[in-house]
């Protein structure tokens, strides 16, 4: 019941306001010759550990791009460098043709980011947080009010009222983080683990919103290690392991005639328990 209700909300209002947000002046970015996100030779070393060892990536505009990788593969590091949160040791990143590190103001305007493992300003209520993000992006207060109300409504966060974000559940935090990233109508959405620790109801809602966003001409890049979600949503996939892109292409190219999980485990080189070890588990 809850899902149906939420989906109904979206089909009713979300599609409408999304078209209103993305005015004609942004059309050039959607259809332009620039990829939505381009990475060249991004590398980062922490002390003695090489986290990312030269990543090249082209995310076509209008694609739904999944960045796959096991824990510690360098997904978060790569995305952080791509959006200007972490200065790379080498390489560069472009958002729709704007260099993130030399022309940050232009690039960041086109960009919506939801980092993972990063706190929000969580001693604000959800509404206050949205207002802060909107004004920080230089938006008109009236527009902020209207969009924030719609987002809170669609994401089923309006009931939380003035509860501080610090008291939100994990799923609610993800949803308000997504709302903050969407508020200013970015052309590229970079999400780090958007489905981590999210209950199925919220996950369905987030999926629905992201699909509509891409259908409306936006581009989504997200990292995940949940094969099922990636397989369902993505048009393009890159598999990252040990700081290097191992496979890249459209979902069909990467997957071939096998399941994505098979390809992933093979590429990453995992092992499965043989049954000899851990015998004490089955006493």
């Amino acid at each position, binding site marked *: 019941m809850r899902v149906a209700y939420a989906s109904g909300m979206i089909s009713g209002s979300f599609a409408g306001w999304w078209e209103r947000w993305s005015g004609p002046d942004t059309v050039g970015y959607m259809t332009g010759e620039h990829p939505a996100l381009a990475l060249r030779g991004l590398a980062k070393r922490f002390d003695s550990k090489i986290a990312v060892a030269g990543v090249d990536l082209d995310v076509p505009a209008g694609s739904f791009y999944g960045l796959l990788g096991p824990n510690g593969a360098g997904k978060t590091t790569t995305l952080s460098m791509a959006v200007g949160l972490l200065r790379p040791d080498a390489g560069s990143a472009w958002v729709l043709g704007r260099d993130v590190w030399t022309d940050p103001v232009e690039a960041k*305007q086109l960009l919506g980011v939801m980092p993972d493992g990063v706190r929000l300003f969580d001693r604000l209520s959800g509404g206050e947080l949205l207002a802060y993000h909107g004004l920080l992006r230089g938006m008109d*207060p009236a527009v902020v009010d209207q969009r924030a109300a719609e987002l809170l409504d669609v994401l089923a966060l309006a009931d939380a009222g003035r509860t501080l974000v610090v008291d939100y559940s994990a799923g609610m935090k993800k949803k308000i983080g997504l709302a903050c990233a969407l508020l200013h109508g970015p052309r590229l959405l970079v999400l780090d683990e958007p489905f981590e620790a999210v209950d199925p109801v919220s996950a369905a809602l987030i999926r629905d919103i992201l699909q509509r966003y891409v259908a409306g001409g936006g581009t989504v890049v997200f990292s995940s290690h949940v094969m099922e979600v990636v397989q369902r949503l993505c048009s393009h996939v890159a598999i990252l392991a040990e700081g290097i892109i191992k496979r890249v292409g459209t979902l069909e190219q990467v997957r071939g005639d096998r399941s994505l999980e098979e390809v992933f485990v093979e590429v990453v080189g995992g092992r499965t328990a043989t049954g000899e070890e851990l015998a004490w588990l089955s006493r």
Partner: protein
Amino acid sequence: MAVPVNVPASPVRPVSARHFVRLKLRVMGNNFRGQGWRVALFLVGSLVGLWFAVGGFFGLAAPGLAGDDRYALLVAAFGGGLAVLGWLLLPLVFFGVDETLDPARFALLPLPRRTLVKGLFAAALVSVPTLAMLVALSGLVVTAGMFGGWSAALVAAVGVILGLLVCVASARAVTSAFATMLRSRRVRDLAAVLLAVLAALLGPLQIVGLAALQDADWDAFTRVATVVGWTPFGAPWTAGIDMAQGRVWAVPLKLLIAVVTIAALLAWWSRSLESAMVGAASAGPARAKPGLTGGVVAQLFPRAAGWLQRDRFGAMVAREARYWWRDARRRANLITIAVVGLFVPVMVNLGGQGFTIDSEQGFNPVGETSPVLVSLSMLFVGLLAAVTLANQFGFDGSAYAANVVAGVPGRLELRARMTAFSLYVLPMLAVVAVVVALVIGEPTWIGFMAGALVATYGAGLAVNSFISVLGAYSLPETSNPFAMNSGAGVVKGLLTLLAMVATGAIGVPMVIAAALLGDAWLWLGLPLGVAYGVGAALLGAYLAGDVLDRRQPELLAMVTPRR
């Protein structure tokens, strides 16, 4: 169908305090790994600690070395008593406690509370300040030994160790209790009052002490020392002296007082520890508060910031203003400013009789307070208020990423932070100026006092803008407002010192003006001071903002806690 529960075949080995100590050493060691500057800072901190320790040692050993047994009891009672008082109050006001081992991390382990408290206590003992204290207070052993031989030295040694335990236990118990209290908003006012009372106690004590010093009535002094010697503050320290001076019957009683005190403090700590552990896991059910009247933008702006434009600058000021109140860590800082800012000037200026020693060589031989002395105390309050911002980005932690992603210009960011903090501090400073002026009976001085306050505060904002951008460090994500990362203690101390010295240097013209300009300063002080302060702050934001623009990602990395 009941599934039989398998008892693990291997017996559970008991956890002892040794494990906690080793864990702490390991965590400290890992913190240093690959961070040369942390090792360097740790060494510097250790050297400073050693310096003070040696100084304290000779101070406390002085009666013994000089062979003057008249002062032995005095030094032991007051020196030791001050040490306990310091351990009790300094963590609250300034330094915080080292939470290398955060109690909340142990919440899920099947540890009896007794084991936990013993372990955490043992781990707390392993620290540079404790070792420095041990060195310093060994001076008492020397004194006792000189007068009473080996037996007295032995008793003194036991006393010193017990005294040290009292120090550490009191620091832990008090900060833990306060952390719990400050987290609950209902009692935050009570906490403020309590802090105020504690700080207020320092004032009368000092005045009494200085008055006594001047009269040089050693008998009266010794009587006070005798009384202090029977309180937990002095009992462990004076036991050795009692032995040396032949009051053997007092020794077991005093040691007993110390032991009972330690036990009581640990029991208290153990109680607040439990709520700290539970509180960290969950701050209670999230209550949905009614609201959503008006737009979200209107919600963001507190009433006191309602005059602001609804733009980037306004939003940042509003958010910061909300944070100074809602974040327990920041609120604790505000309370400290309010309390210390009021009491220190009153103490310094009312204790005028005591300060005649200083002012006799100075400007006012009468022994009354003077414009220079008042300006100096205002200087102190101003720089103390501003130094709160020395790690302003550390308060935000990784949440600062939002501003980096939005690409906020550095100058705007710093100006907004200054404005929001000033919303709280400027009214406080005004109250300080008025109250102090009235208390010392010089209402005409309000103008230049406020001028000196604002000038130093503004200079401090400028200095601390740089410090906060260049020397930020991460704060642990616990709900204990007094918690710090290990190693950060030294960083914090050095940076704070640096900021205060630099601010003081910039603020000194206000004191010189007060000395030289005489009556004209009564009128010129306020406008000139305000212009000086505002100018300094704006210049600081302008210059430091430039640095910030180039360092945003690096700053974010510095304030993000390592996990």
